[in-house]
């Protein structure tokens, strides 16, 4: 899933500084699962903002709503009747959400309440870790099912580098050297020779380097026979 962290209240308060009536809109997708922008977090943010503005004797009226997903126009369109009633809308979805909202409702201002960080999963309750960088050409099977693109600070395909020390990455000693992990796993499996194979150049054009990407499923596109 997409993982995000909520922005500081200070930052969100400054975004809505001049507004009197706002809508905080959450998303039941990824940001609900990573406990940052679902129904609960929407209410908590709304309450915290109201407290801050009451304290400043400049009350802020806040309505809340949670969409099934903010990255699908069929759900985004559900705000059509009400979106114009507010001075601004604060979105708690990943960065995709407020963009879809802005594209559909061109007159309204949408503020992102979260910082979208990575594709990952929960390694324990309350802790999420990056696993994929969306490179567009998955090759984890070459590395024991572990992704060095996302998990090696240098995205090395023939690691580890000389900075690997006792299983820790030189970039940050609290980060595991994923190449250490890959090699250990291959050794355990008795397949360390796999790593001797030289991988060809990685074609980064399928990643962000090739510009914004688009996926088309011909069989789903209306108008296609």
């Amino acid at each position, binding site marked *: 899933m997409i993982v995000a962290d909520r922005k*500081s*209240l200070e930052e969100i*308060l400054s975004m809505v500084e001049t507004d009197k009536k706002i809508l905080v809109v959450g998303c039941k997708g990824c940001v609900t699962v990573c406990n940052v922008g679902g129904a*609960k977090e929407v209410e*908590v943010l709304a*309450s915290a903002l109201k*407290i*801050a503005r009451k*304290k400043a004797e400049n009350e802020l009226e806040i309505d809340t709503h949670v969409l099934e997903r903010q990255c699908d126009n069929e759900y985004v369109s559900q705000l059509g009747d009400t979106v114009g009633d507010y001075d601004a809308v604060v979105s708690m979805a990943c960065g995709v959400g407020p963009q879809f909202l802005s594209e559909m409702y061109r007159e309204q201002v949408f503020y992102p309440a979260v910082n979208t960080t990575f594709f990952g999963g929960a390694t324990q309750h309350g802790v999420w870790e990056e696993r994929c960088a969306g490179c567009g050409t998955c090759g984890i099977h070459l590395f024991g099912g572990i992704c060095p693109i996302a998990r090696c600070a240098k995205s090395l395909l023939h690691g580890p580098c000389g900075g690997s020390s006792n299983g820790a990455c030189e970039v940050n000693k609290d980060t595991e050297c994923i190449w250490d992990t890959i090699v250990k796993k291959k050794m355990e499996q008795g397949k360390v020779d796999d790593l001797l194979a030289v991988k060809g150049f990685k074609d980064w054009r399928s990643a962000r380097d090739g510009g914004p990407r688009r996926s088309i499923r011909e069989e789903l596109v209306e108008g296609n026979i």
Partner: protein
Amino acid sequence: MRLSYPTNVKVIQVPCTGRVDIIHLLNAIEDGADGVYVAGCLEGECHYIAGNLKARRKVDYVKRTLEEIGVEPERVEMYNLSSAQGARFAEIANEMVEQVAKLGPTPVKGSCAA
């Protein structure tokens, strides 16, 4: 045992402090309560294993939130006591009322603020 505790403490009963959520504490502050505290069972004695520990983490979250927006975090507290400690219950109520009185009225002028 007839113990008295301050009349300005309003008790809201929950089956377990694990039921108390962040939003409940924030709503109390938002609505103008001068302070709010959670009285849970002693740590290690929760009938639902960890309800009181979860409550403490939620109280800490609310404290951090209040601090971020310039409201005294001491307006929210977590206490632990057993249901057999009636005297301690009254003592805690007094302690909390005293702590909040020192801070003065809430800076959050909500609908039920005096």
